[in-house]
């Protein structure tokens, strides 16, 4: 029996030690960028307590259906180039809290990894909650047979965030997960009124961590109100705001992932 992940060419995880740094944002923008390069992308959202992915694509009210091989992922639009799976689609009411201890979370994650009928995908992006606990251990274990491409680690520039991401790097090392690189998110804000740049969450911590640990640095993504607005409204930032301040950095991250995947394939 053919596994549901057999048609997935590359699997990558988006991790962080810290909450609120923009993992789901980076997962979303990476998917949109890869789609614009002509790739078919899936996003598996394993943040069971705070599933953010559905809203970022404006499909939060969609339901999930079953087929012979398992769950049918939710397609974001007509051309079916981006598909999603999230516990967000399984909740009766959007405000319902998922108050589960580890074992129950682990069981659902195993199902999410094995039972979603993704079909053929170029990339499966796995968006995770912050930390190094049940969800992360279970996800990495379940994905191990499928040899993931690796992990992208997201941090904000400050030391308090970098401090947690260092631990996430250790997690990757200990679990044998290759680190594709570090993204320094929320790195600077350019005032739309006067163009003054302010480092609201400091600057440089992510780049320094990459240098210090010998891991590739994928780039700095600035704070961009147009990006935040796009995510709120479930719009395609990559298509609609190519002149926005976060666009070049996000496009560059996607290009590096594409290059990395190509290298690995050859």
């Amino acid at each position, binding site marked *: 029996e053919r596994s549901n992940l057999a048609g997935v060419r590359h699997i990558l995880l988006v991790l962080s*030690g*810290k*909450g*609120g740094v923009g993992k789901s944002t980076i997962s979303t923008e990476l998917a949109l960028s890869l789609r614009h390069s002509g790739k078919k992308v899936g996003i598996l959202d394993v943040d*069971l*307590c*705070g599933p*953010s992915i559905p*809203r*970022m694509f404006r499909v939060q009210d969609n339901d999930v259906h079953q087929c012979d091989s398992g769950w049918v992922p939710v397609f974001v639009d007509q051309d079916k180039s981006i598909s999603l799976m999230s516990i967000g689609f399984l909740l009766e009411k*959007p*405000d*319902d*809290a*998922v*108050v*589960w*201890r*580890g*074992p129950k*979370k*682990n069981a659902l994650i195993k199902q999410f990894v094995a039972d979603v009928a993704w079909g053929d995908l170029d990339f499966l992006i796995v968006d995770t*909650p*912050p*930390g*190094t*606990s*049940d969800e992360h*251990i279970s996800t990495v274990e379940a994905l191990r047979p499928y040899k993931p491409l690796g992990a992208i680690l997201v941090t904000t520039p*400050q*030391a*308090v965030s970098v*401090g*947690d991401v*260092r*631990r*996430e*790097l*250790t*997690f990757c090392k*200990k*679990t044998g997960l290759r680190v594709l690189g570090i993204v320094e998110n929320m790195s600077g*804000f350019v*005032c*739309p*009124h*006067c163009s*003054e740049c*302010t*480092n*609201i*969450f*400091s600057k440089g911590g992510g780049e320094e961590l990459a240098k210090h640990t010998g891991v590739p640095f994928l780039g700095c993504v600035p*704070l961009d*109100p147009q990006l*935040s*607005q796009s*995510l*709120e*409204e479930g719009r395609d930032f990559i298509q609609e705001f190519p002149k926005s301040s976060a666009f070049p950095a996000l496009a560059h991250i996607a290009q590096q992932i594409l290059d990395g995947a190509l290298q690995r394939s050859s």
Partner: protein
Amino acid sequence: QVALLDIDICGPSIPKMMGLEGEQVHQSGSGWSPVYVEENLGVMSVGFLLSSPDDAVIWRGPKKNGLIKQFLRDVDWGEVDYLIVDTPPGTSDEHLSIVQYLSAAHIDGAVIITTPQEVSLQDVRKEINFCHKVKLPIIGVVENMSGFICPKCKNESQIFPPTTGGAEKMCQNLNVSLLGKVPLDPQIGRSCDKGQSFLSEAPESPATSSYRNIIQRIEEYCDQHHFQEEKII
């Protein structure tokens, strides 16, 4: 007399923010000693039990619960006016355990933090739901990162736009108090990174007055609460 307990086992940020990085926990006859920032501010975190800043705590739920129990049972806090518990994001093991383990003592309530956007609010509604489920009173909600005033031109930008009415609308809808809004101030992150008190470093910042107002409202809630309790007794 204040105690700060950090139960974010995977991502313990409190030691750095308090300027206590590298400190270790000492044991005595009466249990584990908290690490003191000042005479009247003691702190406990898994961060103090790790020997390197690269050490990862890769534990499943039951082991995390075990440590949280130890923190509550074995730390010699002494007489304390306020025990503040900092939690990780989510509604899982840590949250269930802390509520369960503290049920015999009396939790005054929870302060819930959000940023203004719907992406954050949608998770916070779940957290509010969690509090109702476990019968944890809600002291109120704080809207953090609420607007940014450019230091050069003084115009305000909504970096995290409140597209669905922000915490204010959510609090109205869910009948919980909005304790206050804290604006973005680069000095906050800097102070936390340096382990210094932002309130002391930037007394004139609008964020400082926001924090102080919020803290005052929390104190008032707790005072009122105790008064009502004593009335019942």
